[in-house]
């Protein structure tokens, strides 16, 4: 059967099991959009409002489901608009495939209209990318793209397809043989010696601690990890993207580590005599000062990416392999252990944290603190929502006060910290997980970077709830200004539109929350509406995320919350 390149693109997507494509048309990709007519019953194309939105939607879908998300755009500006989304997916190892149109192969290099070297631009921010100028290579290239995106350490792959390739026709045959990528061999499992050395250290440890990262969720290692923790009586600290790796209600789960992690968690890291790092990469946001990081511990590091081992933190045993496979190799050698003394020491630290915690205090007035808003949202959603955040203070409060019980229920831009990620990623996540209640928790700043996707949510009637934590500030930056720049609040106060009216202009139901008492009802109402909703939380403007390890400081030198909630009225 003869098909055009454009049709072949859709055929390949169908065979990869693609359900959705998020995209935006334009000249160089028009042949492919034209061919969509034939495939509309097999793949749903969602028209976004900005190509960055398409990439975040594909990313949100990928993180929520573990499947590859697909975004599509035209050449030139369409392709460059994808750059932020691709970089976001790269930093957090999210499997997406971006298909862009390119000018006809004959004019490549001539600065033709809307020609841009997008494979050049995205070279350092993709796991791999391809330029297709020969129709005979289209099928193999697309197969490789999906395979590379989803296997090993997942990541974004871009396929740039020249317009003439989309237009030309060829006999279509879908190969069934294995994909040949001689230079691509993702790490698999541990060697016997590595397991032996790891077990040896584990048996000697008196103060062991597991550091659980994104890799746990991605490799489906949560069961193996929990078994290790329970059998070995080992507490677990989570990275931001590791939330959900073990149920946060579990007594061995300590919560989040790092810059805004729990003080007790960071204390445990500094006091441990063995760290078992699982699918995490010792990012500077979790280590603080590397010179003083967990000074007395032996370290075992398991990660799918060999180049992560010894990159930031020198380890004693480095195992490059699939986390689940390696943990399952390890488990038969792990006996039942007890570390009661260690645990009670940690409990002591936790008690101090609980005592200071803002959610255990009653605010003096009917002020609404973001921490309370998020804790109440957690309660009102039964702790069971799929939450997607944007970037800023609200993101950290989410991480601190929304406890996650299952993997893939917190989706957030960790590595790149991309403002504007929240709303579009939530749309993608909801489409991937239609049975989950999906909440986007966004700041007033980041929301305005991609709020245009409210249009997409409205058009497709995507049943998401958007919680805007409105503090009328670029809060996280304001916090740094307060701590480190002598309170010079340059370029952080924001005059915002009426977010409820804005939502309503899109035909989206909106609720405003100004005090704590309104939260349960607002949440219930938002969830009962079949379609997108916006809930605006008007929160304290000058609030601070505690505790905080200043950038580059020692992990144990945290700025702690003062014992009582400060009265903010005077500072305004």
């Amino acid at each position: 059967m003869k098909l055009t390149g454009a049709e072949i693109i859709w055929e390949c997507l169908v065979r990869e099991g693609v359900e959705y494509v998020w995209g935006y048309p334009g000249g160089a990709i028009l042949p492919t959009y034209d061919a969509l007519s034939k495939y509309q019953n097999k793949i749903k194309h969602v028209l976004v409002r900005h190509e960055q939105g398409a990439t975040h939607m594909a990313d949100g879908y990928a993180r929520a489901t573990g499947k590859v998300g697909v975004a599509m755009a035209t050449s030139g500006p369409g392709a460059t608009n994808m750059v932020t989304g691709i970089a976001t997916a790269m930093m957090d190892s999210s499997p997406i495939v971006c298909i862009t149109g390119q000018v006809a192969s004959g004019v490549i290099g001539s600065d033709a209209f809307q020609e841009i070297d997008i494979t050049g631009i995205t070279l350092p921010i993709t796991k791999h990318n391809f330029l297709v100028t020969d129709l005979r290579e289209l099928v193999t290239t697309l197969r490789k793209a999906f395979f590379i995106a989803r296997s090993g350490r997942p990541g974004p792959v871009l396929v740039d397809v020249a317009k003439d390739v989309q237009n030309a026709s060829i006999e279509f045959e879908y190969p069934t043989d294995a994909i040949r990528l001689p230079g691509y061999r993702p790490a698999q499992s541990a060697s016997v010696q590595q397991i032996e050395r790891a077990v040896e250290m584990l048996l000697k440890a008196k103060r062991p601690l597991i550091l659980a990262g994104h890799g746990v969720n991605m490799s489906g290692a949560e069961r193996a990890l929990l078994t290790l923790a329970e059998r070995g009586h080992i507490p677990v600290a989570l990275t931001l993207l590791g939330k959900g790796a073990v149920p946060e209600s579990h007594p061995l789960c300590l919560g989040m580590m790092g810059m805004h992690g729990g003080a007790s968690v960071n204390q445990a890291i500094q006091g441990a005599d063995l760290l078992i790092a699982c699918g995490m990469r010792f990012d500077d946001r979790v280590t603080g000062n590397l010179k003083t990081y967990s000074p007395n511990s032996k370290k075992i590091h398991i990660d799918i990416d060999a180049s992560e081992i010894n990159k930031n933190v020198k380890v004693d045993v480095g195992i490059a392999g699939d986390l689940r496979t390696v943990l399952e190799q390890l488990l038969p050698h792990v006996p039942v252990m007890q570390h009661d003394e260690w645990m009670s020491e940690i409990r002591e630290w936790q008690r101090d944290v609980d005592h200071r915690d803002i959610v255990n205090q009653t605010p003096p007035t009917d002020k609404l603190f973001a921490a309370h808003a998020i804790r109440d949202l957690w309660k009102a959603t039964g702790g069971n929502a799929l939450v997607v955040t944007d970037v800023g203070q609200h993101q950290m409060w989410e991480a601190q006060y929304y406890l996650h019980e299952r993997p893939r229920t917190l989706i957030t831009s960790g590595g790149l910290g991309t403002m504007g990620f929240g709303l579009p990623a939530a749309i993608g996540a909801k489409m991937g997980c239609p049975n989950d209640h999906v909440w986007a928790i966004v700041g007033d700043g980041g929301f305005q970077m991609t709020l245009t996707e409210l249009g997409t949510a409205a058009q497709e009637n995507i049943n998401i709830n958007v919680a805007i934590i409105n503090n009328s500030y670029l809060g996280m930056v304001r916090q740094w200004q307060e701590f480190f720049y002598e309170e010079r609040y340059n370029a952080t106060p924001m005059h915002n539109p009426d977010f409820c009216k804005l939502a309503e202009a899109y035909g989206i139901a909106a609720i405003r929350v100004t005090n704590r008492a309104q939260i349960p009802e607002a949440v219930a109402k938002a969830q009962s509406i079949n379609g997108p909703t916006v809930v605006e939380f008007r929160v304290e403007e000058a609030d601070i995320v505690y505790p905080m390890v200043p950038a580059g400081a020692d992990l144990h030198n945290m700025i702690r919350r003062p014992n009582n909630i400060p009265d903010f009225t005077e500072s305004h």
Partner: protein
Amino acid sequence: MKHTLVALVENEPGVLNRVASLFRRRNFNIDSLTVGRTENPNISRMTIVLDSNVTRVYQVEKNLYKLVNVISVQEVTQRPFISRDLALIKVVCAPEVTATAERFGARVLDQTDGMCVIEFAAEESRVEELVEALRPFEIVELVRTGVVAMGQGGVVTRVEPDWATA
């Protein structure tokens, strides 16, 4: 310490760009990088010389592996190996020039317009010695190819022939 890595890569457009981009992005400083053809038309061979500690070299190696087009990476410095750097050195002709060249076993390849071009292929350090020896004679132009290296005898760096027909 100097380490020499040999990478076999797919002979495709853009691969050199990927490798160069990786070194730039990761801030890996390299002494020299050469690319050339091999016994297999589908494969190019890169020789990379780094002056780094072992951990850094390990990082370079692992990061090279992450490039999809890189098929294998080996540190040849670990095993018996030979290496050559080829230099063309143009100096103002003088009797001592020829004598110096001969002492090193280098060849005077060309003599035109009162200048001679000396050709010398040897280990990098040896080439450097010759360059120093010639410096007093006014070096007009100098070019070096960068190091290529190969394991001795049974120390072979090549891909299995079975995948060659991609």
